[in-house]
């Protein structure tokens, strides 16, 4: 697998790995059957994502894209985080092999899933704001 140096760096030294016990929003996408699960934790104060952590079960690209996604939304507003696209994550990693593009999609979805959870907890219908995030497939 021809990974860029940035992908390898984010795989070997992933940023923001872990959990946030009192997170304001938690999102999980992917499933074990397909070999990728990403779980994203957000701490939100006012309108700003003050902290962001992740856990990932998956390949090198899955770990690197989740790591990069957390870096790209930490300290940003919710609106900015909602603008995060898989393409932007890929570009920030200097590209991904074609078979790994879906990992960046998963990273984008993980952020959206966490924000969906955040709005749901606030009693706000998330769909008009976040859009539809694919449900996790259960066995």
């Amino acid at each position, binding site marked *: *697998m021809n990974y860029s140096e940035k992908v*390898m760096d984010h*795989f*070997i030294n*992933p940023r923001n*790995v*872990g959990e946030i016990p009192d997170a304001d929003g938690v999102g*999980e996408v992917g499933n*074990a*059957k*397909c*070999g*990728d*699960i*990403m*779980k994203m934790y957000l701490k939100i104060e006012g309108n700003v994502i003050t902290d962001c952590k992740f*856990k*990932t*079960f*998956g*390949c*090198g*690209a*899955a*770990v690197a894209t989740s790591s990069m996604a957390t870096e790209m939304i930490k300290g940003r507003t919710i609106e900015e985080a909602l603008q995060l696209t898989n393409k932007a994550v890929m570009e920030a990693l200097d590209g991904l092999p074609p*078979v790994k593009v879906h990992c960046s999609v998963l990273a984008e979805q993980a952020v959206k899933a966490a924000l969906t959870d955040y709005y749901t907890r606030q009693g706000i219908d998330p769909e008009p704001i976040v859009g539809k995030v694919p449900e996790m497939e259960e066995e």
Partner: protein
Amino acid sequence: MEKRYIYADNAATTAVSDAVLEEMLPYFKEHYGNPSSIYALGRENERAIIDARARVAKCLGAQPNEIFFTAGGSESDNWAIKGTADRLAAKGKKHIITSVFEHHAVLHTCEFLEKHGFEITYLSVSPEGLIDPADVEKAIREDTALVTIMYANNEIGTVQPIAEIGAICKKHGVLFHTDAVQAVGHVDIDVKAQNIDMLSLSGHKFHAPKGIGALYVRRGIQLPNLIHGGGQESGKRAGTENVPGIIGLAKAIELATENISAKNDRIRPLRDKLIDGILQIDQTRLNGSREQRLATNINISIVGIEGESLLLMLDHYGIQASSGSACTSGSLDPSHVLLSLGLVHEVAHGSLRLSLGEDFTEEDADYILESMPKIVTYLRSMSPMWEKMQQEHIRLNADKTRLVKED
């Protein structure tokens, strides 16, 4: 712990050995003649090929005129299977028996033939990764053209009962081909004693270069020509011979088939040490029979982590290995071999294959056993799958093929 560099992917490919390279070198610049040419430079190379053919044949218990040089294992498999299918279809035989966990060179060739009107029986394998010869016998029909069963599995290293299958095929008058790419140099092969009609091998698996292989075809079997052209390889595979490759293959197979049992006796305890050591890690399983197994193969599933991540971390530690995970195969499904053992996807994704070389040492084994628990602990610490397994008490079931909730 000092970092070591360990190549543990010898089932993928091997380095050309010094002895092989030395024997090949003169054939690049000094002895560059075309073996078909009339002058000495050509005649000498023709003789060298005749000699190499005899050397390869001897290592398999075959006759020289039964050995055809090819570009490798996949070509040999394609030729044997499609060639046999082509010949026997004319006699109304359009049924082939193979197994579900063959190499793709065999499986995809069979699938191709299926689209062209052939019927293929894909035998299932036991949970231990072994084919039951009785299943082969039951599957044989009036119109069976060929049985093709691999000698040793490339992922899990299980060695199939080839002599028994050969005897059954002989009894029923059905041709028997075996893909022995992973077996040559690891087990003693005698094509006559084992009733093998055709056998594929690949040089780069035993220290010859990439791009050279051979197909053994028992005398009397008429395979159609693979490449039309000049008279090379009895006119069956035309094209100017890969002289250095052929010379290298002959040397490599001689070295590989020398003292096989002594070499296996040295490496097997290291294999077992690695298997036992890695199985100490919680929620792991050995894939494939422990007894009917290549002395160099280790294949273990480690639940809660994904194979490619494991390989990248191992590489970071200096250990080169392979996996049957979907991510390393470029498809969405994990290895068909692991699935054929009855493993669910979740268990198959975290697989690791180590294939040891002759130079593998006790220190190498110790280093791998020191590194593995650290890597697994680290990857599990960031795995939501592992987290869920811990929280909900999900564990491997009794036969370790799937995950169940403990009561």
